[in-house]
């Protein structure tokens, strides 16, 4: 569904989206990795469990919340992808960790 623009930006950074390896160009966001991996949704809402995926890609809609490197509820569109990053589905409300 999504492809990178045909700029000369080689996809060289390997990240994991739901444990599958995805290559993204340097400077891409974690949300871009989610879309390139072919996921329409990366979270389930806290109240009704409705599936949601990256939408605004500019930090406004909060629909791209994901667990990134073990930290829940991060806005994937605001997080630059780095090699080895693990992006996982945010399933409903996060746990508080006493």
């Amino acid at each position: 569904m999504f492809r990178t623009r045909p700029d000369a930006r080689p996809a060289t950074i390997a990240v994991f989206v739901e444990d599958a390896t995805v290559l993204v160009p340097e400077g891409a966001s974690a949300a871009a990795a989610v879309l390139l991996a072919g996921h329409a949704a990366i979270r389930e809402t806290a109240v009704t469990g409705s599936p949601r995926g990256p939408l605004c890609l500019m930090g406004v809609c909060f629909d791209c919340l994901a667990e990134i490197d073990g930290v829940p509820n991060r806005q994937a569109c605001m997080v630059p992808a780095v090699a080895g990053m693990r992006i996982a589905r945010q399933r409903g409300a996060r746990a508080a960790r006493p």
Partner: protein
Amino acid sequence: MTTRRAEAIVVGGGLVGAAIALGLRDQGIDTLLLDEGDIAFRASRGNFGLVWVQSKGLGAPWYQRWTRNSAGAWPALAADLAARTGIDTALQQPGGISLCLSEAEFEDRSRRMAQMRDEAGNFGFEYRMIRADELRDMLPGLGPTVAGGSFTPYDGHAGPLPLLRALHRAFTDAGGAYIPNAKVAGATAAPHDFRVETAAGAFAAPRIVLAAGLGNADLAPIFGLQAPVRPQKGQVLVTERAQTILPLPMTSIRQTAEGSIMMGESQEEVGFDLTQATPVMAQIAERAVRAFPWIAELNIVRAWSALRVMAPDGLPIYDQSERCPGAFTANCHSGVTLAGAHARVLAPMIAAGSLDPSLQPFSAKRFDVQNAA
């Protein structure tokens, strides 16, 4: 200009006005609910959402009784609103805790709670001072420096916004008329004969209830009443939603039905100023993290401030005008806690035409120089 007539006018569409308007409507009274507009200060929309008993009425046992009776009326109110409107007000009354973050706070709290019980007399006041060791079993991840807390079984919490929506819905479904953008610009008052002018038209009725929050201060004198209320700013911080972890509400921290953790207990005397500033927000966050260190890991997603409607002694004011019988005021900063009493106890009194003598101590006459001496 034509004047719309009804049997009662309620000025103020917040939690206090809407609860009273619904109560009047349920007594069969044709009621108009006049609301200001989006420029209003809207204390109801900044409310923290406690249905709180244990801290209310120290030195004023009549307020303790009024508050506890209101908490007691809440389950029936919530069930009634849910049945009529389908709106869940998220009421939970598992008891509540006031945390003490130091030994000094614990001792101070112990004294206050003992005084509350003494003043309750035959009405009784059940409470326990709980030391940190035992409290740790009740509250997950309690901070190492917490000294303890006071528990009473009367406390609880609810969603202020669903409550406000449910009161409005039930009121209009029952045939009440809600008039928005109707700030009172002028009024005339004679016994059982009141007329108000607003941008939304003129309205007249033999009964009027002033429930306009901070607006009551200016309105009340027109009707031969006093409502010396002042704004007191409170700030609230709200975290992202988390899985339910807190089993009961505390005075300054509660987890909503949908998982957000709300924090706040600030009191600032700064007039009509809603500015939010980091010093107070940092203080709120710091105390919350001392209580529950794990809160520090949660993201804050919202913060707001609102203005409490405070009488000089912090207690509600309820009055009927002597000069213009039929005019009442209702003023308080506990629109959620007191919703039960306002809808189900106060409104029937207003409908019947006089306040019960048990409400006498809430009269603004207590601020007269003769009485205050």
